[in-house]
């Protein structure tokens, strides 16, 4: 029997992209489980190849986006997540998940703060890959589009680290048009291993070609770039961690 690739999708109170992210993971081939935080324990994650923290407003994001989730998650399985990563596990954070991963220090130092406009922005954006050598991006074309929807998505660093991240390729994904005032237009960041990745745009919302805002009805495309994103990770894990 073919071995299945298992993913664990974490759900906090206030997580609201769980069902579409679950759908995206399954469509790409994963055997996914949605685990509410109250049922999570530290041993559990080692049964999976990837841990996904989806978008939403965990605990309302009232203090600062992702802060309470970070405390809760850090307390419960913080050390286990680092161990999981060291053992070759993948960790993905989308939108609110990206905010949480940064605060857990699973990603290089940076912060996501209120958009320069001070507003929530729901918009399709053009993205550019800077470093394709990550399990999450290696099958995607250099340029593609995804929707964003956030109010705290402006990527900021101290001591001009953003430039370093771009130079070193850790900032693997940038906006073509800087919609929220992020330093160097950074939209996605991975750690040195490439196995932890966080991004503000929502790949799970462009799973099918019909999700696009300007459809060409004569096109035979079935999937969107979000599908390729999840498919990349799946292919990578399926062959035991090779690109």
């Amino acid at each position, binding site marked *: 029997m073919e071995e299945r690739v298992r993913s664990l999708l974490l759900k906090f109170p206030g997580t*609201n992209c769980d069902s579409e992210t679950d759908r995206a993971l399954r469509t790409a081939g994963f055997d996914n489980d949605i685990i509410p935080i109250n049922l999570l324990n530290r041993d559990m994650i080692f049964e999976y190849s990837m841990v996904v923290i989806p978008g939403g407003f965990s605990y309302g994001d009232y203090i600062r986006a992702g802060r309470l989730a970070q405390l809760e998650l850090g307390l419960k399985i913080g050390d286990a997540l680092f161990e999981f990563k060291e053992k070759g596990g993948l960790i993905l954070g989308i939108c609110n998940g990206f905010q949480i991963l940064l605060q857990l220090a699973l990603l290089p130092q940076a912060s996501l703060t209120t958009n320069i406009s001070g507003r929530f922005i729901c918009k399709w954006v053009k993205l550019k890959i800077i470093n394709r050598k990550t399990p999450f991006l290696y099958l995607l074309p250099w340029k593609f589009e995804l929707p964003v929807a956030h109010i705290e998505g402006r990527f900021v660093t101290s001591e001009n680290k953003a430039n370093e991240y771009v130079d070193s390729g850790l900032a693997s994904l940038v906006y073509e048009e800087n919609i929220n005032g992020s330093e160097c237009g950074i939209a996605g960041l991975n750690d040195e291993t490439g196995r932890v990745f966080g991004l503000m745009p929502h790949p*799970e919302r462009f799973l099918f070609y*019909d999700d696009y805002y300007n*459809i*060409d009805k004569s096109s035979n495309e079935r999937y969107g770039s979000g599908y390729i994103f999840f498919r990349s990770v799946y292919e990578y894990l399926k062959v035991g961690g090779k690109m």
Partner: protein
Amino acid sequence: MQFAIYNGAKRQEEMDSELIPILEMTDSELGELFFKRKLSLSKFDLRVIKDYFREIKRNPTELEIEVIAQTWSEHCKHRIFNGRILHNENNKMKVIDGIFKTYIKGVTEKIIKERDGFVLCAFEDNAGFIKLDDELSVCFKVETHNHPSAIEPYAGANTGIGGVIRDILGAGRGAKPGACIDVFCFGPPDCDIANIEEGVIHPQSILRGVVKGVRDYGNRMGIPTLCGAIHFNKVYTYNPLVYCGSAGIIPIKDIKKEVYKGLSIVLVGGKTGRDGLRGATFSSASLREDSRTEDIVAVQIGNPIEEKKILDFVLKAREKGLIEYITDCGGGGLSSACGEMLKTTGGKIYLEKVPLKEPGMKSWEIFLSESQERMVLAVKDENLKELSYLTTIYDIDCTEIGEITDTKRLEVYYFNNKVCDLESEFLHNPPYKVLVSHYRDNNLKAEITSNYNENEISNLFKRVLADINIVSREPVIREYDFEVQGNTVVKPLIGGLGDMPQDGVAIRVDGSKKYIGLGCSILPSYALIDPYNMGLSTLDEAVRQIIVTGVNPEKIALLDNFCIGNPDDSYELGRLVKCAEAISYVALCYKTPFISGKDSFYNYYISENGIQSIPVSLLISSIGIIDDKSDITTSNIKSGNSLLCIVGYTKKELGGSIYYKILDINGGRVPGLDPQLALKIYQQFYKCIKDRLILASHDVSEGGVIVALTEMGFGINCGIEIDVDRIIKEEDMSISELLFSESNSRIVFEIEESNLFKIKEHFKDLPFTVIGKSVNNHRKIIIKNKNNIVVEESLEELKNIWKKGLEVYY
């Protein structure tokens, strides 16, 4: 803490058992008592209440008085919509046995007979249900939250959207909310603050507060806000209107819910406090200057995360079959929720079990509290254990507070004291209201001929496009997460740059091959002149918006939401009656049933300079089924090599139009409707969609054909050339009238030239014509009359005007 609550409650116990000696009171003393408690009941109601208690030979408790007032309030029993109306028109009087029964429910009943199996449940539950496919149903509900938004815009809109989402969660045995719709009517955002009375919030602040309120609740709940409208008009400066709606999905087998003896009553969600007391009665009265300070306690701030947890919990519990009955705690709190639930059976509630936010609450305060984010469930005892396990997973409180009986009585206890014992029969059958309405035409309806210099058209066109009611809603739309759930296939903003307007929106449904189309229409400037034609136009536009998106015309259902000023004013009520007549006439012809609706009265403000009221404000929201993915059609022009066509007659109907507003003309002929012809157009248009002949289609509405065509061109790098002379029209129409007329049932659309013959076949005997083409060699809109150019403008420049219009204010 526990101890403190107990102590407080102990003292309360003695006070609560006291009876209020209404039997010993004179009528005026009784009136005084209700007035002091801010309970809006009529003298006649009070007499009926007194008679009831005389018959059962005792005085009521404080809680009983409050329960009766809440249950009989306009908010809960819609006694005006259900009341008898003596309608006077043309010196004749007719008796209308309930506006609701005659013009809304009656229409639906007739249509249901012909459209077997499409409407699954109408006007019975928290929302109306239609069939999506053999397994799934979609339900839809729109509410108003006007008074709270007027005095506290952010919180008012917040709890408005929270409430309607709970309506969907409490529809059937718990539906999954999949879309939200929000429609606002505000005063002009540029109105001079000096002209507004003290205590009234400036329209711009209301706009900002309301939008942020919707954003912060809807986005956190993870429900896409997809559809809406904002209408600015000075008549709404004192009485802003906020309509919030939501659509949900539920398996057909889970629509039916019932209560029977032996079930336990369970309260789920947040704790109960003094916040929001008397919201239901407060919303059934008019606003006045002191409303801001006095009634602000009635407005709460929502807690979307609490509600999100309830949502996760309810959907899981329904999936596992643990829920027999569910309803939300909205206006009237537990009193209203339990009252409705126990109407046919009866039941016992033990208020000491209700988790409280603060100690020392009286029993009636607990029962009437409108604390947000609570739901009431009826469950089998054997399922309580599993239900309580789910509450630990989703972090919510769940408390057993009572049981269903078969006594047909509402019995409420507080620490062994019976604080309420009322027969359902009495409680749920308030006396009939009888109202008088009077309709007479105002002098505004007559046709007007505008002698405007035709050389001015280009300038006028730009002013129409820059009008506050035409300009892009993009700044507001982007605040709403319209992509969450990943199912928004037709978005509110579309086209090459994802920033041009779309009529109806469409969502995919997980587990179904069908799609849902949503649209809405509200036309208050027509209502000021002619409420009957406003009714015709509003219904027609709501239907047309989703027809052009690919909805099957045989699978459309509607919601009606009326807001009016003072129903005791026969003039205002007369205009409501005319409007209701109009929509019932068109709905019957289109066979589009009403499945739910809501009415809101007393939208007037008593100011120093007299009463500020609103015109009849009707929102029609449309929901329809798109049978096949390929039927989905959007409004953006797809190629620079196509023909542009129009179907429908253009008439000299400019009363209430944007054009007349620009020219400062008050009055004129408001667009009418030939519903038989319109229906034929829509049926044939649908056939064209089915035959894959339509590349793009847009409904012609405010601003006329020129605005519709221009908008279609905003999404692609090509130009538009139109010959105005080809438009099928009435005699004696000037060019500007042709371009800016807002006649109904017109659609402009794009086709490939090679398909013209087939299109002509479909529109045989109908007012169809090719009016121009899209071209690749320029990026302008050029409008010719025979060979004279009347308008030649850069589409980029026009788009800039249109796109920037609202940015100044939001």
